[in-house]
């Protein structure tokens, strides 16, 4: 018994040692599959569809990275992580990239030794209540029971919000967002709080979405984005510029439909040419081939298309672009130039 325990520990440490030695890019290429940390199920962001294929806004980022690195957007192994396990999964090398509605904060970036590679969704924490509760503002929630997911920034914002406003609450922590939603629907808590996008996503899965309302207060800034480990800058660059390629593609008008045509021959616009690899050697600088960005966009389209397909007004989730519009349209999306 004791012996087998030791061998197990030895093996685990040995494996940890090997993952630390090789570069992530080489490792992913050798493996032929990208391990992507995702949520345990948030509609619109990451959820398996009827054919058990993961779909969603966060999933699309992983597929884009897989397309850039491996040439196949489907070569992704999705690893469901909870709010609690996600950083350990990333730090231990279990996943190569974490794309799981993760808020970019100082301490996560600096102290947890993570690298955030831009923002794929500008979010903020909100509150959802049943309309029958008769509450119109989050400041009326004195004494309410609030369902939250443990290990999230939500939990900390919640404590701050109630403290600053001098009102009390009873937290009901759960490990998974699905448990929070279930308790909320059973009215074991009055309020469900998470990022506003998550609330919209949750409401879309309820039997009677119109019976619930999202309160006007947005109590925090929640920039969500893909994350990798500290220390592998090349891998970080690939993830960062994959996201930037998706954003720039929308700005430059490259879509899933016309990307092949744009890549076939140099166009008038030098930036498009540089992205498509028909001019310059950006792909080579990144350690990839010249077509990497073509594959990224061919996977699920540009940022706008991905948003439209998974979160937009025509989907169950029904979110407006809001802050997530291009900077040219008054939003915050602003990709550095491909130069």
């Amino acid at each position, binding site marked *: 018994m004791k012996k087998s325990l*030791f061998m197990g*520990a*030895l093996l685990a*440490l040995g494996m*940890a*040692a090997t993952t*630390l030695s090789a570069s992530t890019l080489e490792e992913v290429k050798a493996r032929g599959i990208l391990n992507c940390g995702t949520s345990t199920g948030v509609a619109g962001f990451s959820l398996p569809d009827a054919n058990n294929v993961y779909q969603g806004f966060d999933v699309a980022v992983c597929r884009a990275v897989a397309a850039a690195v491996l040439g196949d957007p489907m070569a992704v192994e999705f690893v469901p992580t909870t*709010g*609690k396990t996600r*950083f*350990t999964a990333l*730090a231990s090398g279990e996943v190569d990239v974490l794309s799981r509605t993760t808020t970019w904060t100082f*301490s*996560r970036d600096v*102290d*947890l*030794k993570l690298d955030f590679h831009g923002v794929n969704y500008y979010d903020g924490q909100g509150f959802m209540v049943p309309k029958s*509760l008769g509450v119109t503002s989050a400041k009326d*929630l*004195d*004494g*309410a*029971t609030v369902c939250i997911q*443990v*290990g999230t920034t939500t*939990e*900390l914002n*919640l*404590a*701050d919000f*109630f*403290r600053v406003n001098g009102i009390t*609450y*009873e*937290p*009901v*922590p*759960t*490990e998974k967002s699905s*448990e929070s939603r*279930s*308790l909320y629907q*059973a*009215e*074991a*808590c*009055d309020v469900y709080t998470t990022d506003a996008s998550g609330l919209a996503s949750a409401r879309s899965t309820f039997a009677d979405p119109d019976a619930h309302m999202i309160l006007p207060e947005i109590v925090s800034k929640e920039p969500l984005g893909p994350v990798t*480990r*500290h*220390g592998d800058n090349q891998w970080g660059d690939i993830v960062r510029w994959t996201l930037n390629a998706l954003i720039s593609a929308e700005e430059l008008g490259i879509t899933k439909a016309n990307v092949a045509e744009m890549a076939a021959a140099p166009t008038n616009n030098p930036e498009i040419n540089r992205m498509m690899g028909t001019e310059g050697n950006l792909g080579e600088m990144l350690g990839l081939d010249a077509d990497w960005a073509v594959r990224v966009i061919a996977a699920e389209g540009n940022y706008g298309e991905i948003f439209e397909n998974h979160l937009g007004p025509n989907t169950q989730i029904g979110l407006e672009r809001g802050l997530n519009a291009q900077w040219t349209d008054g939003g915050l999306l602003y990709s550095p130039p491909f130069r």
Partner: protein
Amino acid sequence: MAQHQDFKKPTFELSMLLYDTRYRSTSFQVIALIFFFSLVWWLVNNTMSNLAISGKDIDFSFLVHESNYDINQRLLEYDSRSSHGRAAVLGVLNTLVLSAIGCITATILGVFVGIARLSKNWIVARIMTVHIEIFRNVPLLLWILLIMSMVAHSFPVPKHFRGADPIATMKLFDSVALTNRGFYIPEPLFSNGFGDMGFFSNSFYISIDLIVILAIFIGSIWASGKIKARAKRIQEETGIRPTTWYLRLGVIFIPTILLLVYLGFYLGYPELKGFNFKGGIHLRNSLIALWIALSLYTSAFIAEIVRSGILAVSKGQTEAAGALGIKPNVIMALVILPQALKVIVPPLISNYLNLTKNSSLAIAVGYMDLTGTLMGITLNQTGRELETLLLGMSIYLTISLLISAVINWYNRRNDMVER
């Protein structure tokens, strides 16, 4: 002659370490120990160097930093400005509360089921068999989740208690509210209490009332024990046992009751205010789910232990005692149980330890025990996996060792003297 000389002065050779039985066991143990320690050293060293490569260090300073999160079940003063260390202490207390009430109910239920399974009544015995097989053969986590969802979905929502003609009403003369957010029961309050006493430069407070009540009650039980000892002495001298039950009952209860009256004891009832019930003691649905699940699950094991303990005492003992003219209930108390306990108590300890460790499943229903605070939220917010897990493991180890020390002490004290 020469042979005799050799025998007198044996020269030590290195091979004797292996072939001489006097040294062999020691040398093997030394080799094993060296191997073991080098393995430990290698593991620690490897961990440290890997941590250094990933830029992490071992640092417990987070324990004094603000935790920034709230905990719902608080046995001590705590808010989001308190430290991570304090959050861990609250977690430990929540673990202890859950384990304590779980062990008590599991023991009561287990003893009852174990004895009932030996019943001569066929139906009773079979029902108990079914109870045992159901509860010990389904994973505990499933029971916890099942009971949690039963509580959350089948009990009324607080708002159903509102209005002129409410859907749900409070039970037991309006003193207990059973809701899907947990059960609210009356709390003991004192209108004339002594207040609280601060410990460790007021880092936590303990009610002086509670200390005084406990002191008086324990004193009463000690006095009652003295009366019993006196009765035994008189019985041994004269052969007649004086009737003492009313004396002992009085000694135990009258001082405590007088004290409660002096303190102005009254019950605070829960009341529906705003979104929730206020006042009273709030047993949260997570605590109830864990309590019931842990009790039922562990009771199945305890029942089997009790049954095996009773069956271990041979039937001849009962018959011999009966032949001496001893009454059946006295046979159980003085002949069977002392011998059965000897078999029951040691495995009982491991079940108490199991219950305590199983309470770490609490996070599944969001109960803020040690796994939820220190090894859960604190770990996640600070990213100190190694530190929080090492600390958490050593706390569980300490709790387990304390429990087994206490019960071993009890076992030795009540050990039967065999001739």
